[in-house]
């Protein structure tokens, strides 16, 4: 595919921004978390684009690792969410504010 890298990067930026918005606006812990995944994915997109531009696959390696990390995060994150749900019977993050001040 023959597209200027900048376009791809801009697309990734858009996705990144949406991800950010998701974290900021959604109250469902899971959805927030999904938004984080979206942000990571945006990063992946950018990396692949750059890799393509430079014609070296180092970028691909990065993406591979990032996906791995994402998997790890998901494991822990979902575990946390489940645990919290068990105690609070809710994953509305706005309910989780016993600690403040």
């Amino acid at each position: 595919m023959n597209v200027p890298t900048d376009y791809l990067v801009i697309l990734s930026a858009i996705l990144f921004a949406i991800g950010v918005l998701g974290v900021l606006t959604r109250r469902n812990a899971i959805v927030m978390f999904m938004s984080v995944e979206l942000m990571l994915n945006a990063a992946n997109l950018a990396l692949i684009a750059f890799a393509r531009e430079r014609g070296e696959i180092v970028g691909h390696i990065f993406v591979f690792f990032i996906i791995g990390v994402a998997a790890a995060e998901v494991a822990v994150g979902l575990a946390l969410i489940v645990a919290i749900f068990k105690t609070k019977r809710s994953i509305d993050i706005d309910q989780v504010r016993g600690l403040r001040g």
Partner: protein
Amino acid sequence: MTTDMWIFLGLALVAVWAAVCMLISRSAVYSALFLVLNFLTIAVVFLLLQAAFIALVQVTVYAGAIMVLFLFVIMLLGAERVETTPSLPWQAPVAVAITTVLFGLMVLALLTGQAGAAPGVEVAAGFGSPQAVGELLFSDFLLPFEVTSILLLAAMIGAIVLTRRERSREAS
């Protein structure tokens, strides 16, 4: 306007649309599904960018395993929709505003720089193929690879710790 361009725009539209839907749909399940859609679209983009292996990983691991896990948890907890009582009314607009600024700045930075020349070098046939990636992975990037494995191990332990109930009972 080349065909590539058209394809790209199409995919981009789909991806963004999916992302936005994920963002706005009230139900967590829909969000998850839209995210899967988004990932798949991106995977296609990867493919078109000669990143076959990664595209594959994206589909199987990301869109497949991870998102399924998400869905599974959502179902398990039966927590599709949580936004019942309104709280932090001012948060959303402010967030939108600031995020827009962020996006604007990023684009600004991109454009002030010299416009990225269209996909630079022509690449060999094997570019992005599993074996190419694999070789690099086990030569130059051995250390990160090991680290990732440890990372996953740690995450696993963590997940176990956090979810095994009875041990904590007996302990406390």
